[in-house]
């Protein structure tokens, strides 16, 4: 006998009835590695951190992040970076500036030519990292020093993320139309549901019959 559920979808799965036996522990990477996603709310706005996705590569990560992190509210662009490719400074207090407080280490690796790096700042613990700009450097450490010169004056800065621009998968300008209809999908928004009229009408009618 297979399991008969109230959910016709479950009934169609033909599950065996009764308790399911235990599974072997899932293997490492069964859920893939992780990628971090940054969205851009409107043209000219900074790309802001929205969260991670598990995916087998950056193309699939893009597909996943697009629906997990930009299916509501306006969006004009999305960046995807493999978590492993992001260098993170220590975190300092909400009133402090991390650039003033850390010891910049000697680079372990340097590129021959300068490369572009993207810099993200966290202004307050609990909030999200936002893109502040791009610097040219031959290593992550040098990029951090450059970032300090260019963007590090105005504290507090709690934490900094540094990544090579070449590691950032950026949505294309011509793909913006994938997001254009989102603000119209009102069925996903609280604002589309208004029932006060029905309640008032019901109460009115009820009152009349009661008295």
């Amino acid at each position, binding site marked *: 006998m297979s399991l008969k559920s109230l959910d016709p979808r479950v009934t169609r799965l033909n599950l065996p009835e009764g308790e399911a036996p235990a599974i072997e522990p899932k293997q490492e990477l069964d859920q893939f590695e992780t990628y971090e996603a940054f969205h851009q709310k409107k043209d000219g706005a900074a790309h802001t951190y929205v969260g991670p996705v598990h995916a087998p590569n950056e193309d699939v990560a893009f597909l996943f992040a697009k*629906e997990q992190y930009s299916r509501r509210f306006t969006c004009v662009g999305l960046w995807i970076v493999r978590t492993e490719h992001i260098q993170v400074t220590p975190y300092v207090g909400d009133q402090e500036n991390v650039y003033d407080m850390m010891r910049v280490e000697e680079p372990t690796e340097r590129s021959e030519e300068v490369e572009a790096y993207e810099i993200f700042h966290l202004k307050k613990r609990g909030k999200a990292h936002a893109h502040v700009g791009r610097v040219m450097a031959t290593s992550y450490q040098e990029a951090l020093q450059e970032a300090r010169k260019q963007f590090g004056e105005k504290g507090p800065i709690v934490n900094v993320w540094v990544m090579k621009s070449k590691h950032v998968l950026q949505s294309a300008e011509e793909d913006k139309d994938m997001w254009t209809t989102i603000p119209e999908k009102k069925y996903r928004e609280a604002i589309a549901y208004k029932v006060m009229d029905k309640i008032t009408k019901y109460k009115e009618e009820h009152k009349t019959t009661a008295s």
Partner: protein
Amino acid sequence: MNELAIKDLLYKLADDQLILGHRNSEWTGFGPILEEDIAFSSMAQDKIGHSLAFYTLLQDLGETDPDTVAFTRNANQFHNSQLVELPNGEYDFSLIRHFLYDNAEIIRFEMLSQSSYEPIAKVTTKLKGEVKYHVLHANTWIKNLGSSTEEAILRLQSSLTEAIPYALGMFETSKFEQELIESGVYAGEEAVKAEWLERIQAVIEKTDLKLPDLNTTEPKFGGRNGEHTEHLQPLLDEMAEVFKIDPTAEW
């Protein structure tokens, strides 16, 4: 312009999307990984939304309201292709169907956005971007899985072989074909099919999959004229189960 011809076109567009959207929604909560579950649900929602947009155009032409049209007709009154009504099967079949269907859908939308019938042109222009994501999603998955493990390739190949006759059924011409083409409403099924073939071949070439020989494949026609597989009516019954408790009620 012949209103019957336009209605016929709108019905097949709307019914395809309603039924496929419904099928795809069956995956919600059962997907292979959480993120994909979410992406697949979004596309299912889009499809249902697209069908609603087309049923609304039909209502503007004097047909009854979208809920009644979608939830009270019987299988023989539906104009969807048989491809979309087949059960979901395993994920390989759902992905292959999604790939074959959406690569045709985007071409329809691109062509219809140039339609001489303005209401259709407006709707498809607006919704095109959503279908673009659907195609990106389908093509990315097929490229990835279609050149991965033997297991995955075998699964996809077998689903592709199974789905192809039904996919060809999408391009069943209607009796209004010539009229629609001549009046510039729609470029016609043959044009869509030719372009579709090029696009799916371009993706398949990047994988270890093989497109079956289309010259020897008998297309599964009939859906556009209300002839369906045994799978459609139970689906419609399920869809209408609550609605039919009291069709006059507001749910």
